[in-house]
């Protein structure tokens, strides 16, 4: 589903140039659940953003479903992303002025979905995330765990093929974090490909595979099980 060849990303700010990603090669198959780990500032978010086509690589290629998208125009990338990819962020990123229902409805608004279908779909996802009873509330009225569940509901309401999660449990206590991880695992088992950045070894165990980044480079790629044995 995803293939990355010799991909680099450099940032220019005033006088310094930072290399966030350096000649990375990577492949992710449809249906996989991949965790990305590494120290702060090693380029995890940058990689995720490029995978999600929110950002473009400085050099190298990115094939999404065999199609080269890394060097596409913005509008092209936006079109491919629409309906195919969605995100879950550490800071939830809900829109404060919209209530839960409207937030979750958001991706469907920009696809050709009838009003009735939209409503049915939103209610269904909200129920699955066990947040249906809060559908008329505003984000500020919800706890962190609830907000993240709404964010996940929004991310999957349009049935994306790829779900990108950047430290989804980073702002949550361990119990709610666990709930969120269970939801993600469930989604993955239903066919959604998931790439998740995390700091937590425990969360990484939910993934099929862990990719370790260091200073913009892939250090090791192992399955969670392998890591588990190594660490013990």
């Amino acid at each position: 589903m995803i293939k990355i060849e010799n991909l680099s990303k450099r940032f220019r700010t005033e006088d310094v140039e930072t290399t966030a990603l350096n000649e990375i090669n990577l492949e992710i198959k449809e249906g996989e659940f991949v965790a990305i780990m590494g120290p702060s500032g090693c380029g995890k978010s940058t990689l995720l953003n490029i995978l999600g086509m929110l950002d473009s690589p400085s050099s190298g290629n990115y094939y999404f479903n065999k199609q080269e998208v890394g060097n596409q125009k913005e509008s092209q990338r936006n079109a491919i992303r629409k309906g195919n990819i969605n995100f879950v962020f550490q800071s939830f990123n809900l829109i404060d002025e919209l209530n839960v229902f409207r937030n979750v409805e958001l991706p469907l608004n920009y696809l050709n979905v009838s009003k009735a279908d939209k409503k049915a779909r939103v209610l269904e996802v909200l129920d699955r995330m066990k947040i249906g009873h809060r559908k008329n509330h505003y984000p500020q009225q919800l706890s962190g765990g609830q907000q993240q569940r709404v964010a996940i509901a929004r991310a999957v309401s349009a049935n994306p093929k790829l779900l990108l999660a950047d430290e989804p449990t980073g702002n949550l206590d361990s119990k709610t974090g666990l709930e969120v991880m269970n939801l993600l695992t469930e989604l993955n088992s239903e066919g959604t490909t998931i790439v998740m950045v995390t700091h937590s070894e425990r969360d990484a165990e939910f993934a099929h595979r862990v990719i370790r980044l260091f200073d913009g480079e892939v250090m090791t790629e192992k399955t969670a099980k392998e890591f588990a044995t190594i660490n013990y």
Partner: protein
Amino acid sequence: MILNQILKNKKWYSINTLGIGLAFAVALIIFTHVKKELSYDNFHSKADDIYRITTEDQQLEGQPPTSGIDGRLILPLYTNFPDIKEVVRLIHPDNTIITADKNNFSSKQLFFTNSQFFKIFDYKLLRGNRANLFNQPNQVVISKKTALAYFGTEEAIGKEINIQVQYLYSKSGNYTVAGVMDDFPDNSHFKADLLFSINNNEDINQFHTYTYLLLQKERNLSSLKNLINAYWKKNTKDGEPNPISQLMPLRDIHLYSHNADEMSTNGSMTSLIILIAGALIVFLIAFINYTNLNYVQFITDLKDFKIRMINGASLVDLGQIIFIRSLLPISFAILLGGLLAYNFDTISASSFNMNISAFDLLWISLIFYLIFALASLLPLATTKVSKDLAHSPYQGSKKFVASLLFQFMLSIAAIITTIVLHKQINLVNNLHPGDEKSAIVIMPDVPYHMIAKFEVLKESFLEHSEIRNVSAAFYKPGLNIPFSYPFEMEGIDKTVEKKLNMFSIEEDFFKLFNIKPLAGSLDMGITSSIPWENIALRIHDQNPNKDEFIKNLNAYTKEHGGFQEKYILNQSALKVLGIQNPEDAIGKSFQFNFMAPELFQKGKVIAVIGDLHYGDMFSKEEPMVLASKNLFNSTFIAKIDPRRKAEALQSLKTEWETLSPDHPFRYEFVDDLYEQIYFNQYKEMKALTLFSILSIILSVLGMFALSSFSIQHKTKEIGIRKANGSTSLEILMLLIKEYTQWVIVAFLIACPIAYYIARDWLSNFAYRIELSWWIFIVSGVMALIIAILTVSWQTWKAATQNPVEALKYE
């Protein structure tokens, strides 16, 4: 959702609504006003072919020409020029008494005219037959208003009106109402209430006749002018100046003609340009505020927009959201502005007679919707939202520097020009004679029989304690009427042909206007009496009984107590005479060479006064010699107790009517007279003051919002600084320094602009204030203080906050 937005940002929304609302009100008002000013006399179907003919005045330099021409020049125009189809004469006599239904009336809006009037002009006739008007002698056409006032009904056809005309005696008599016209529209450059008939080619030797020509569609203006000039020249006696014709299109009269004796105070293109510029400035400032706040709003919302894009929204989707969001505040603004504009007369306590048409309201609203709704999309169009969706960098306040500079600049320029205008109007008011101009009553155009009774009237006036001084003069304040004559004066070379202006005053004139002499004494002692003047006036070369009259006069003079003629010079006269020291003129003998030489006897110069500035200030003070000839003093003047105005007016009226039951009491206040003369300048001053205030209020609001935004983003910086030991004051000083720099730059740009505008405006006046440097400094300092106060308000709150609080806030 929109409501949520508005509640969350009510400060910014209300600033925008107020700004757009004011700009909308100003746009509506100015547009309506300008449209009216440009529409003057458009309603005549033949407007494009009608011209007013005047003559260039060659008598005196620096004086505007009059609006009428010498009656003797008109008759030849009827027949000798194929380009001229019709000629309409309008004669406005002073001193008339009208009697209708046994009541006396007076009207300023009365004219004698010929039947062609109704052929070339389209004033609407309500009663009567247009084709037959004035086909019989002694007919009169009156306005609806007049019909109602005189006869209590519009059905006035066939009624009689009697008119007594002092200086056009042959036209006095009974006239039959032949038509009733609708009241003249507001956008007519003159308004007539009574039109008395004269014959088309009746030879009326009236010195001052308003004359309109209907020209052929195919015409050659310059050759027509040349032909007229040549014809006039051929018929001018040797030694008299040749009249030079001027043709002004009817529709230009209102805005471009500023002759003497206009039929009513005209508008001015300069005023219109000032008004339009002012409106544009208010609009620009409101627009800048709007775009700035919009941008700020956009930055605040950027994160949400990015989230929407991540969830599949396109730029068009975002544009739609922003566009729809902008409509509500714009609607509020238009509602507010519309209310302000429709109630402008009440709010400003003025009588602009705002007649805003529904159609104008509609399309101007639409334009506002369009401009501001589209402007709300500007930040979206200029920011790459979809680029770097993952990051939302904060864009600093550098972006606003240019617009802040611009607003400061406009505000400073507005303050400077407002001060200049106020100072100039003030100067003009102070230069004109009279301390309390609102307490000086003028009775203009007094008829002869009342002039003859002046002494009696004066005495009866003065019996009332609320009437303090009574005097009389040649003509009313504000006029500049040249009566210049050659003279002889002791010590002045006779061979040099010079002329001085004669201005006649009654002996108490100086006391009333509180005028002090530069040299000599203003005590006129015994002056000539009216009977004496009447005899003297008849002694001239054409009079066959000249010698007998002289004998009579001399006898009468002795009987009369042997008065001595006294003359008073003004400073401009001294200059013409080449006398440096006013004292040197005192006691010198002087005599006017008047056409009736006995009227101004040889006498002595008793005093020199500063320039009187009795007339308007658009032209320089004429060299004047003041003398007392009571026969000429057809303007009575009374100074009253300002606290007992109503009482005083009543007393004046009662005494007047006791002596002259036939001729109604008419009065004007001197301050009103001058205000009328400077009508356009007052209008400009008031408008500019209003615009300045609006600009400053809007700029302050904009600055307030912007600084609150940047403070919000600086809170963390302030917190860090404080944590590192800076005091609140130091932080404040830093910000003040920043704003001061901008104000100084804006000041440097504004000064030359304001200087240029102010100088241009002042050039209207012959006497101007100096554009002293302090006006500029004061304006700059004012702007600076306003800026600092606005910014400090916000900063102080932030700076005095506990640093921990500030750091937490981020």
